[in-house]
């Protein structure tokens, strides 16, 4: 089942790219299509951040991951590159868990 999902979604993502370079450019002239295509990544990424940091199964919780996210925000405000942001988030959560086991 996992393999099926991996290959199905993988091939699907390739076909989405191929559709983009194959369809006539006037598809973009549909304002709704262009607008929704712009908005979907914003909504999904924001939801992914929220769920990844604050969801624990079907519970909501504030733990070391939230501190990691706060550190990531700080790194982004300071214009740190991607890898640094990811590292800072991980290191903050790891150090907090070292200091407060089980958090």
């Amino acid at each position, binding site marked *: 089942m996992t393999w099926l*999902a991996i290959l199905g*979604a*993988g091939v699907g993502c390739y076909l989405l790219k191929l559709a983009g370079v194959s369809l006539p450019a006037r598809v973009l002239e549909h304002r709704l299509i262009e607008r*929704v295509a712009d908005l979907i990544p914003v*909504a999904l990424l924001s939801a992914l951040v929220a769920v990844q940091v604050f969801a624990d199964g079907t519970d909501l919780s504030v733990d070391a*991951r939230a501190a990691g996210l706060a550190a990531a925000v700080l790194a982004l405000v300071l214009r740190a590159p991607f890898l640094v942001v990811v590292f800072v988030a991980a290191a*903050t*959560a790891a*150090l907090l868990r070292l200091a407060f086991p089980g958090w």
Partner: protein
Amino acid sequence: MADPGAQELTEPERRVIIRDSLGVGVATGLYGVSFGAVSVAAGLSVLQTCALSLVMFTGASQFAFVGVAAAGGPPLSGALTALMLGTRNTLYGLKLAPLLGFRGWRRTATAQLVIDESTAMSVLRASRPAARVGFLTTGISVFVLWNAFTLVGAVAGNLIGDPRDYGLDAAVGGAFLALLWPRLADGRNRVLAVCAAAVALGVVPVTAAGVPVLVAGGVALLAGILTVAAEDSTELPRR
């Protein structure tokens, strides 16, 4: 400029584009390490992790897929989230196709390279040769390094024990935020981001893992319909 393909690209110009593109390629490819480590921590095998980087090859979708898996969500939810995030590459392709002008098997082969970084390094070029150099150099270097470092991260991730001890679960939230960050410069996007996060967290207690993110996709669709309709109703009537 009758035909962008007729323009010549001087050697110094070509070198600057290649240098910049390789820089982006190396920086992006390196974080394949974090994807590889996060993916095996989510319970995928090394082979499955590498298959995602090879076949899916679009970072945000890959992180989303393994994020749902890590939360114990059904693979179908992960696949749908990955596909929804992948739709932005369709938009990139639509913008890039007239600029790059690839046909036939070249178009089929280079379509896999249509991602955030290759688009950013080619879409603003003034001529077809410049756009092609930026697109191909960035796309190929990211593809090679992303896949190589995915393998490194996946193998290393298998050796390190509990990923939470290293904060890898927090790393994923940081990665998504870093991908989202440039888009938050826009006020409308900030409002949508807050609404989407609130709605997603609101349905966490009552849905299976992966579903909250799909619901947020619905919020984007609704926001698109509402904002376009609002603009139509405030436009001056044409006479």
